[in-house]
């Protein structure tokens, strides 16, 4: 079972974002980078599937050369090889991203029985790259999944919905997008980190097409910064807290 996981390098957001002078990006000079939470569980799931069924895990990303850091991190978790579709740092829109990913998959030596992605990226949140890739590959896709069972040539996916959950059974090869909470990702081990340094990464650098969803400006939404009223320190604040409970009628 060969599994491909697509990840995206995104800034590690602590408190509030600051926007760059040109109004197009997050000021990230002082920020660390990570991948979206949905993708952390995607890699963990891929490693578990391969532990159970044998095969390999490949991690793919489209991003700047520095995104090698995110690929290596996932190799420390257990991914075997990487594909870096290198950009000059400018954002690619969902259609361009999906085309580049589908091309990389089509031209790869492996057919990838299962392609796993996050349901949406933490930053752009477009909800569409996985679906577009599936259409380009002519493979079925199930999105928003929180349970995966893989058999020889079929997979069953569970999707949480308001009324409970839905089940989807599809033939492999297939594409699936997953949600945080699918599993609890492991931490990389020290030997894992050492092994990760030597694993192979293939680099590609296609041309960036003109965006059809063209970002023109980013801004931090204007919300009134609240000034919290301090009710007190430690246990002696309890009476004041219960007074608030009464005021808003929850007690």
């Amino acid at each position: 079972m060969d599994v491909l996981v697509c990840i995206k390098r995104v800034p590690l957001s602590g408190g509030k974002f600051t926007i760059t002078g040109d109004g197009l990006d997050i000021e990230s000079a002082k920020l660390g980078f990570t991948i979206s939470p949905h993708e952390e569980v995607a890699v963990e799931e891929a490693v578990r599937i391969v532990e159970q069924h044998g095969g390999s895990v490949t991690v793919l990303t489209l991003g700047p050369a520095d995104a090698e850091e995110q690929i290596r991190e996932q190799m420390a978790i257990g991914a075997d090889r990487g594909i870096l579709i290198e950009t000059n740092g400018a954002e690619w829109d969902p259609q361009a991203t999906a085309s580049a990913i589908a091309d990389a998959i089509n031209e790869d030596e492996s057919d990838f029985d299962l392609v796993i992605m996050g349901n949406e990226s933490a930053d752009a949140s477009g909800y569409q790259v996985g679906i577009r890739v599936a259409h380009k590959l002519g493979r079925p896709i199930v999105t928003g999944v929180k349970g995966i069972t893989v058999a020889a040539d079929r997979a069953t996916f569970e999707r949480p919905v308001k009324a409970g959950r839905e089940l989807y059974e599809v033939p492999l090869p297939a594409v699936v997008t997953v949600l945080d909470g699918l599993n609890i990702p492991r931490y990389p081990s020290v030997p894992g980190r050492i092994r990760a340094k030597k694993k192979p990464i293939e680099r590609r650098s296609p041309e960036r097409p003109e965006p059809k969803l063209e970002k023109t400006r980013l801004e931090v939404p204007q919300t009134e910064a609240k000034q919290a009223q301090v009710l007190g320190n430690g246990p002696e604040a309890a009476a004041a807290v219960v007074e608030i409970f009464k005021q808003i009628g929850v007690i």
Partner: protein
Amino acid sequence: MVLVLVDHDHGVLDELSLQAVTYGRELAAATGEQLDALVVGADGSGVAGALGEHGVATVHVAAHDGLTDYAPVAAARAASEVAARTGASVVLAAGTPRGNEVMAHLGAITDLPVAADCVSVAPGSPTQVVRARWGGSLIEEANLHGSPALVTLVPHTVAAEPGGSGAGDLAQFTPELADGDLLVIARPAAAEEKAGVSLADAKVIVSGGRGVGSAEGFAPLEELAELLGGTIGCSRVVTGNGWRPHTEQVGQTGTKVAPDLYIACGISGATQHIAGCRNAKTMIVINTDPEAAIMGYADYAVIGDVSKVLPAIIEEAKKAKAG
């Protein structure tokens, strides 16, 4: 023509789709166009009355033997057929898991761009949209190049309101489905017994973060939640540590909540978490750090250790209930 993709569950209308219809009516009025809707599945015809009251002129019903359960590709195929036949300029859906999914399939089928999670749409060439990023922590302005403009709307951007002079005429058709369009189809699993109040609908949420310290540390949170008729929430750190199940996670990748009261215990306030609880009517924070980011979203704060403050609050709350 503005076409709204309306979701329903075996004939029960999705409330968020009515918001999309309301927004679509405003768009149609602004450009002097007709407002139409598409429902997929023959049992969707039952919602035509409600759609007419909300200004829909024609309700296109895609009826097909295979279309009783939710099948996203087939739904998008039907949408593509109606959009082409009617010459739609805008196709709109609610920014729900299903709305975003069907719209993305429509984008892939037609090779058109899709703007998901919009809060504003100005049709034109290009269409200008304003959309949410980072679960609403950032706002993006973007040009959408292509016609029809394919967009989904962030839930609660507008309230659903009846209006307009739509007749809600039914136009049933059988969509031409391609091989494999019904390959992915939902099979409902047996409904699980859910005890207590669901997180999304809870009026009171007592939520814990790293500062709670351990799985056992949630005992006083549970006690307070029960006293207030509420439920437990938590941050991503907590689920990542295995202290609580992911179903209780509030945040960008968890559940987005809007309770009357949100009590944040030992939560620092990362954007991931704030994206899920910013719509709480009242927020009380209990935290040892008066400079924690979450203070900027709180109405009231208690500076102190959760394990010491909560038992005192529980005691006071019991007295108040008894008295």
